[in-house]
Structure formats: C-alpha cells, structure tokens
C-alpha cells in the first residue's frame, strides 16, 4: 500500500476513496441519492406492473393481441436509454424524475408482459379443464388458478426487470432524475473517484439486494414445488 499511497502523494491525485468526504456527505448527499434511487426504481416497477399485468392477461386470453404488443414493447426495450431520456425531454417532458420514470416503465414492460403470458401459458390445460368442469367461472379460474400458478414466473420477471432498472436508473441523473446516478455524474464532472465508486457500489448493492429478496419471494410463492415431504 505504501508504494501506491506514496505515488499518489507525489502526483497529488485524489485518493480512490476519501473516507472523510463520505463521512461528511453521508446524510445530506449519499442517503438522499440512495433513497431517490429506490424511489425511482420502485415507482417505475409499480407503474409498469399496473400496465403489464392486465395487458399480459389480455394477451394470454386473446392471442392475436400478443404479437403487436411484443413488437411495441420490444421496440421500447431496444431504444438506447440515454436516447430515450433525451427524446422524452425533447418531446416536452420536463427534466427531472418524470421522464426517467416513464423511460424505466417502458423498459420493464417487455419483460413483465412476457413473463405474465408465459406464466399463464404454463398452467396445465387439464387443471383449467378440471376447474371449468367443477363450475368455476372464468374470473374465478383467473384469480384462483391461473394467477396463483403464474405468480412465481411473474415475480421472476419482476426480479429481472428490477435489476435492469436499478442499473439504467443511474443514467437518469443525466436529465436530473436524481438517484445514485447523481453521485456518479458529479464524480465524473469533479474528477472525484470517491463519488463514482460510492454511487456504483450502492447501485450494485441495491440490485443484488433486490435480486436476493425477490428470489426468496419467488421460492416462497411456490410451496407446492418444494421437495416431497413424504
């Protein structure tokens, strides 16, 4: 360590991690950025779900709707995020969290809709036949049979979308969306690695945390698939 530290001292470059800066800016800078990031990601996923679930259910029911929906959400998914942010701002959306959230929602739709359809498709046809044969209504079949059985696959979609979104959300700071991207962009502007690293590490940690929690949820939601007890 001494060699590197000596070198840095001589050249006078900023230290990779400036612990004092972290301590001084923890409450009024880092924590709000972290909270902002959680806010951006979770609100986006929530809105995306409100759209994707009904659309997915509809696509599973009316197969003809699925290809066009896939095309549209597929295009949204493939627009480079930076470009999408810029397009939204150019289209008149005020800079700030709004265009970021719109873009993040747009990115999540493909994955969420696809997994909703896949989840419903995976329900064994004989299970649905038996349900119908016993006199469940279509609505009861949807809520009591199809959705519960599809839920683990839907949650798997939420997991992938969330992790993706947490990453992409950092770029949102470019149009003043807030979040951990703010730390990273500021760090780049000021040539101050501590900020960049803090932003990156926290974003990664958040993504991993969300991944693990949602994976747990996915498992929890299918107790019936656990190993045989007998």
């Amino acid at each position: 360590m001494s060699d590197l530290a000596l070198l840095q001292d001589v050249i006078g470059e900023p230290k990779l991690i400036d612990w004092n800066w972290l301590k001084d800016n923890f409450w009024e800078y880092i924590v709000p950025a972290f909270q902002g990031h959680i806010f951006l990601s979770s609100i986006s996923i929530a809105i995306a779900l409100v759209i994707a679930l009904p659309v997915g259910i509809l696509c599973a029911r009316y197969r003809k709707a699925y290809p066009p929906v896939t095309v549209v959400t597929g295009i949204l998914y493939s627009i480079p995020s930076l470009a999408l942010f810029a397009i939204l701002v150019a289209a008149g959306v005020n800079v700030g969290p709004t265009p970021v959230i719109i873009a993040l929602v747009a990115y999540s739709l493909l994955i969420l809709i696809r997994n909703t359809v896949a989840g419903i498709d995976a329900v064994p046809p004989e299970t649905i036949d038996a349900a119908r044969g016993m006199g469940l209504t279509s609505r009861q079949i949807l809520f009591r049979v199809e959705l519960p059985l599809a839920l683990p696959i839907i949650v798997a979609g939420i997991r992938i979308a969330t992790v993706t979104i947490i990453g992409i959300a950092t770029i949102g700071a470019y149009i003043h969306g807030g979040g951990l991207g703010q730390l990273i962009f500021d760090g780049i502007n000021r040539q101050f690695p501590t900020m960049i690293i803090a932003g990156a590490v926290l974003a990664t940690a958040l993504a991993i945390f969300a991944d693990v929690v949602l994976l747990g949820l996915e498992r929890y939601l299918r107790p019936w698939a656990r190993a045989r007890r007998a």
Partner: protein
Amino acid sequence: MIEFRHVSKTYAGSDRPVVNDLSFEVLDGEICVLVGPSGCGKTTSMRMVNRLIEITEGEILIDGEPNTSMSGTQLRRKIGYAIQQIGLFPHRTIADNIGTVPNLLGWEKGRIRERVNDLLDLVGLSPDEYRDRYPAELSGGQQQRVGVARALAADPPIMLMDEPFGAVDPITRERLQDEFLHIQEDIKKTIVFVTHDIDEAIKMGDKIAILKQGGVLAQYDTPQTILSRPNSEFVSSFVGGDRLLKRLSLTRVSELDLGPANGGTDGLPRISDGLTVRDALSELMGSGQSKAVVEKDGEKKLLTFQDIEALTSSGAMGGGKRSA
C-alpha cells in the same frame, strides 16, 4: 336420469358431425359407459352433459329438465367431474382440492373439513396423512383417488368420468375400479363413464353405449346383451373374439347353481366362490382335473366343465348378426 335426445355435435369450422343423432337414457343410480375407438366422440358426448361443450342439435335432459335451464357454471357445480389427467390444482393442498366445489357452494368451514375427511377415508387415504399435502407429493394412483373424491365432494347426483383410471398401471387400475364399484354400491350415482377399453366398459357398466366413427351409436345395452347379442359386425369385432370368455367374467362362481359334492373330493382343487367363472375356468384347466370343489355357506359343492358350458349356452349366444 340423463336423456340424450337426438344429440349432434359439429365443431366450428368442420362440416362433419363428430356426434351424430345420439339418443339414449341413463337411469338413476346406473353407470353408463361410453366406449368406442379413439376419436369416435365419447369425450365430446360426455362434455355436452355439463355443457363444457355446447350441443349443435338436439337436447340433453337431466331429470326431465333441459340442461340449458340454468347457467353452465351452476349446472357444473351440481355434476361431479373427473378426468384422466386429473387436473388437481398443484398449488392447493389435497384438502383444498377436494373442498373446491363445497367452497364454491358456500359451505361453512367445519362442514367442508368433515366432508373432506370422510371422502379421504372413502377413497382409502388417511386424512391425517394426506390432507395437507400438495398433489406433487402423491403417487399417480393416489392422485386419481383424490380426483374421484373431489368429484364426489358436494355429493352431486350425477357424475361424469372420462377415463378416470386411465393414467395408472393395470394393477392399480383394477384396484381403483373395484374400489369405485364398491363405493358406487352405497352412493348410487348416475354416472356417464368414458373409456376406450372394452374390458373396463364390461366391468364398470350397467349399460354400455358403443359408439363408432362419426359419433354414431352402434349399440346400447347391458354388458350381457352386448356380449351375447352384438347387433353388428362392428360391435362383435369391437367386443373381440374372446367375448365368450368376457361373458364368463361377468358371473361369479357363487351365482352358479352347483350340485353337491358327494364323497370323494380328495385331491380335487378348491376354488373360492368369490372368483369370476372365467378365473375359475382358468384354475380348473390349470389343475388338470375335470371338476373342483367350491365351498359355499359351509357346504361343499362341485364345479364341473358342464356347469360352465351350461352358462355359455344359456340365453342366446348370438352369432353376431342379430339385432338386440
């Protein structure tokens, strides 16, 4: 009672009916087996009873009322439904699965619980052990038992069963058939039972409806009559060359009028009077003797080839060309 009245079904996008002018009655407490080659319209016919498939022409009456007199879902809650693929809800416990229809009908929890336990007992699964398991934790045979229990849950007077024992090995199937017949003696449901297996049809049916391609009814009769007087080439070939033997399997040794065994029974084979005549014949031939001893009500009787022959020649053993 279920009455098919000139029922036809043509699927959308096709111009040929798959069920064609079907008329017959299923009497209360009877099992009516629909049997025939694959694709002859058995499943379609059965599913028109609870309107999982809508009729194109004709009508089906249940206790004199057209089955269209109430909504499809309401109708289906009153008719038990069991299928080969079982279709248990994988995410629900066995108890929840069996309780599905009572739950839909709004029974209270305690009553459902009791009913589920009774049904598990009825189909030979210990409630304590199986109630809280998931379907994946049961063997195929156990799942089929649960499927039947679930169909019986709300004690519907009518049951539809589409190859309900089709997905298990032959030995388990025989056991499930025997158990179900035993249960049926008590519950006396009116049952439409679909199978493609003529042996199962003969065993399970009070009446058998043999369908041929295109959903045409070839013959509707008791198993005895179908075996002794098939009304067409189609029926006699569908029933098979061994229909004589099949007839023997419809009678038990205990039903025969046997003569007493006087003295000299040493060295003769013993045959249980619970066997079917077909199995008795097989044992008798295997023993190399011409007669065997049957113990009946503590009395010794003698079973001979003549007794068996008398059975096969009694009634008209048709040549296969006579109509019923």
